């Protein structure tokens, strides 16, 4: 057995609240590029000191000046703006790794501009979806407010078994919902500005998920309290967050994960025991369906654009073989299945009846997942590792 550790032998704790290493790295990085940005500063300082104006920005020779965007019936959308020649062309491979806006006069300044190394998702095929403009406009128009739009004052007290089942379902949803915020957030800053439409849509998904986390947390705490977290949920969330590419993670999150959560929201609306819960689930399922639509069409765009579709499909299958199993780990957790069964059955005593109902819904969920894969051009039916019939379903 090791010698007991004495207090005197402990190393001092690092000083709290100081970030010396980080500041030192930052200083070094910008000193390394000193000649580049300091030359710009010097030039500007001299010009201002001379009292000279530089009106080069009035020169429209290389600009798309004068081709004015016209609003359509619902206002001025990205779609309307992209109709103007020179603004709507997305590169197949983005090579502007900074913030210079697509369609601006930027080429003359390229040699002086910094490169943002974090912009790594430069392939349009890794993020584009043909419905992304529509989904972005729809997402903005269909935002709602979890504080005001839910009739919280009408929340009724339920029998204890149903209240606990509802609060457990809400605990699950509170735990899982914001991965659909963290995942796009992780990739959002890696996407160059030339793909601004996708970045904009992902920002709406972040807001949607913040609202979902908020509304389910509030519902649980208003109804009795949060109940149990579960390790199976956590492994599924980790598998999503750590997906090796944006497309793979989007497949796992938006197409499979959110597709299943969409089904849970629809089930939640169906089995809700109060009008408040109905309203919550109906609002959330609308948001979730947008995310699913992006997931389907992003995967389709990826496979359609890939130079070697066969290879890309093989890789996606390999990824899905693992991803499906990890997602299944979450969707078989007792902290999810059993409370839903209690709500479906109508009481704790009728949990068996609820499980029968769950078995029917299970097959429906998986059929929908496979139909979405097929719609994306990713035929998964023969290889799907999630059983189409629920493990407890009777023959």
């Amino acid at each position, binding site marked *: 057995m090791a010698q007991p550790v004495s207090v005197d032998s402990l190393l001092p704790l690092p000083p709290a609240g100081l970030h010396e290493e980080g500041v030192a790295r930052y200083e070094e990085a910008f000193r390394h590029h000193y000649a580049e940005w300091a030359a710009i500063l010097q030039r500007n300082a001299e010009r201002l000191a001379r009292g000279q104006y530089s009106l080069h920005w009035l020169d429209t020779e290389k600009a798309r000046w004068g081709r004015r965007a016209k609003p359509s019936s619902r206002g001025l959308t990205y779609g309307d703006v992209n109709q103007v020649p020179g603004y709507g062309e997305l590169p197949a491979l983005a090579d502007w790794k900074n913030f210079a806006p697509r369609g601006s006069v930027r080429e003359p300044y390229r040699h002086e501009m910094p490169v943002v190394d974090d912009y790594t998702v430069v392939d349009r095929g890794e993020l584009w979806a043909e419905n992304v403009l529509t989904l972005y406009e729809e997402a903005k128009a269909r935002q709602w407010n979890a504080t005001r739009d839910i009739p919280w004052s009408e929340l009724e007290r339920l029998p204890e078994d149903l209240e606990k089942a509802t609060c457990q379902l809400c605990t699950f949803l509170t735990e899982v919902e914001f991965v659909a915020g963290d995942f796009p957030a992780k990739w959002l800053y890696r996407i160059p500005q030339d793909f601004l439409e996708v970045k904009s849509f992902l920002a709406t998904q972040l807001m949607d998920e913040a609202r979902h986390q908020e509304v389910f947390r509030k519902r649980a705490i208003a109804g009795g309290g949060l109940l149990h977290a579960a390790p199976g949920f956590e492994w599924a969330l980790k598998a999503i967050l750590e997906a090796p590419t944006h497309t793979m993670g989007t497949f796992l999150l938006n197409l499979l994960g959110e597709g299943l959560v969409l089904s849970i929201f629809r089930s939640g609306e169906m089995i809700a025991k109060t009008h408040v819960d*109905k309203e919550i689930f109906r609002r959330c399922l*609308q948001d*979730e369906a947008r995310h699913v639509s992006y997931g389907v069409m992003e995967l389709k765009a990826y496979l359609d654009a890939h130079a070697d579709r066969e290879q890309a499909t093989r890789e996606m299958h390999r990824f899905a073989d693992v991803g499906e199993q990890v997602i299944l780990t979450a969707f078989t957790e007792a902290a999810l299945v059993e409370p839903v069964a209690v709500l479906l059955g109508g009481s704790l005593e009728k949990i068996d009846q609820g499980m029968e109902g769950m078995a029917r819904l299970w097959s429906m969920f998986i059929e929908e997942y496979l*139909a*979405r894969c097929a*719609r994306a051009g990713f035929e998964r039916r023969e290889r799907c590792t999630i059983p189409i019939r629920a493990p407890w379903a009777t023959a």
Partner: protein
Amino acid sequence: MTAASSVAATPAGVAVPFPSLDWFRRLAERMNADRARHEHLGYVDCVAGFCVLDGAPDGGPFTVQVTFEEFAAVDVREASPADAGRADFTLEASLATWRRMIESIAAGGGRPALTQTLNHLSHAGTPIFVRSDDVLRADLYFRYNQSLQEFVNASASFATRFAR
């Protein structure tokens, strides 16, 4: 599409027969009159079919397609089976199912009982079946579910007369 195609012919105050084109046109009128509410809910862009499986005079299906654009119902028309592909999705149910739902909405003053919402009735595929030839077009039913629910909830604002 014309504005006239979403206007009901049945005079105000007279019970509107169900199923009928006029009944859905009355819903469209209500939606368009309550634009502020639908602006709050957000865009709804789809063609929704409503099919009463035994609603035709001969006992066959009676289908109406409602075209939603932005915040309005802009077109309401009777559809034949050949028009099915025009709808993004079609909600199919028996007259008895529709009747129970409409009566529940009326009894609740515009809010159906917990077991009579569109999603509740359609989620398991019965008694309302959501038919669509494309999974993405079917997903529009979910994307606009609250708007569609409020569209049918407006039936509480007028009297309905059932064929049977």
